[in-house]
């Protein structure tokens, strides 16, 4: 898994993504700055590509950080309740402040995402039986509890329909002016890279980290804040993208190990490539209609996840 090949694949898929869609746009059309094609390109196609890149890299890195900090290969925002907590946060912000501004929604969802992830880490500390499969099962249960609380309130206030929209990750709604929140991932990813070595050390366990003079709790909290930030921005703009944070870091780990500073770029690149492929498939399979990204990622991702489960617990 050479970085060079990943970059080539990324560029090729990006170009493909820009020129696949209901209205056909060819690169030549873009030479005319005022044409309708150029407008569609700038308002829809380009934002969509940027959103895919930011969400793909963000969710994969969020998963990577969570797996490192929880010391479990099967923990990710999907399997630790982070995404469910985010959704609950958005819902409650909408119920409590009916006229919630964007910033209020974000802050609320962020607090919930962070609290949910912290709570899961606390549960993880308490349980004695730290089996590789058992831990994410606990996380899924925890997530389902949060999710049913959300459903209950949504049902009470008749906004189930609304909520199911955030449930489904969907890039077709991404337009200029509706995705810029995702840019928060950029500084978050830079921070993740700066702290990569600390995350790796923390991933070797608290005693191990303390031996090397690392302030374990600070690094742990920073990691969870980064994960919560990424989750919130992705859920609020795109919706839930399952499995991405789970499978991508695992695939990279098989080939490149767990030295985060070395695997972070690969994880981000592969996450974007995977998401681009899923998005393009979703766009062409029932052309001119579209399948939401959460569906394509869900189907392909769960197949890969099952394959990884059967492939051998020894490594997980």
């Amino acid at each position: 898994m050479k970085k060079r090949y990943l970059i080539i694949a990324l560029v090729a898929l990006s170009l493909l993504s820009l020129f696949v869609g209901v209205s056909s746009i060819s690169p030549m059309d873009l030479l005319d700055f005022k044409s309708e094609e150029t407008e569609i390109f700038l308002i829809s196609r380009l934002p969509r590509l940027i959103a895919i890149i930011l969400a793909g890299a963000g969710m994969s890195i969020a998963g990577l950080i969570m797996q490192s900090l929880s010391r479990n290969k099967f923990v990710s925002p999907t399997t630790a309740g982070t995404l469910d907590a985010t959704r609950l946060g958005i819902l409650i912000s909408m119920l409590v402040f009916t006229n919630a501004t964007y910033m209020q929604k974000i802050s609320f969802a962020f607090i919930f995402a962070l609290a949910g992830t912290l709570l899961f880490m606390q549960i993880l500390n308490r349980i004695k039986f730290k089996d590789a499969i058992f831990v994410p099962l606990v996380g899924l249960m925890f997530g389902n509890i949060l999710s049913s609380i959300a459903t209950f309130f949504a049902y009470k206030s008749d906004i189930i329909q609304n909520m199911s929209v955030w449930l489904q990750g969907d890039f077709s709604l991404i337009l200029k002016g509706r995705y810029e929140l995702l840019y928060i991932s950029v500084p978050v990813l830079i921070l993740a890279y700066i702290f990569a070595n600390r995350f790796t050390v923390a991933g070797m366990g608290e005693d191990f980290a303390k031996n090397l003079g690392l302030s374990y709790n600070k690094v742990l909290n920073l990691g969870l804040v980064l994960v919560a930030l990424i989750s919130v921005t992705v859920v609020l703009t795109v919706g839930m993208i399952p499995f991405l944070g789970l499978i991508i870091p695992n695939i990279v780990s098989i080939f490149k190990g767990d030295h985060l500073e070395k695997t972070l770029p690969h994880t981000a690149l592969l996450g974007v490539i995977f998401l681009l492929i899923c998005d393009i498939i979703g766009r062409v399979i029932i052309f001119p209609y579209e399948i939401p990204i959460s569906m394509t990622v869900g189907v392909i991702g769960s197949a890969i996840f099952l394959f990884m489960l059967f492939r051998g617990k020894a490594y997980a």
Partner: protein
Amino acid sequence: MIQVKEVSKYFAKKPVVDNVSVNIQSGKITSFIGPNGAGKSTLLSMVSRLLDADTGEVLLDKSDVKRWKSNDFSKRVSILKQSNFMNVRLTIRELISFGRFPYSKGRLNEEDEKMVDQAIEYMNLGDLQDSYMDELSGGQRQRAFIAMVIAQDTEYILLDEPLNNLDMKHSVQIMKILRKLVEDLGKTVIIVLHDINFASVYSDYIVALKDGRVVKDGPTHEIINSDALKEIYDMDIPIQEMNSCRICVYFNS
């Protein structure tokens, strides 16, 4: 110099380490021995500030280990816990490089790389340095961990039952390495040992614990005798001298 002063640790109000005072001799191997649940590992964890003492203090160079800056402390004292389990996929070289973390935070400079090379050579891991940890045998893994500690370049090296799950050959290999570290590099080694004979043959000083208290402590020859062992283990253990090693024959006592 490490001094343990009237240190106690309670778990659920039960003392696990009870008013223990010990002075650790520099440039020697000191073994903590005693029956299960004697508090050996807990004491070692407090010396290495992985656990905080409830009362009393552990002094490194006359200042309480709690008051040391975490990073400075990790340049003076290193600890390897008994859990050899790692679910992090690192190559041996990557692991050993993390021994330099207190100095370089992971971005290794030339001197760091040199220290890593030396540690690899010292532990004879050159051929294996690019293998992943999870592809190794228990003995090789333990050697890699010790190499990491060597790269960490601390004056004090603390090990919690490093011979766990190792066969005879590898146990001897590890103990010889620790002996060499003390003799060649002037390190101070503190080690929790289960096997009384390894303690007898390889250590300079022994601290015997029982029910959280120090029962005996002194140079090895003062501890390895039938009377003292009776007090520590409640067993009549005859001692046989062979090639100037005192061997405790406890198997049928």
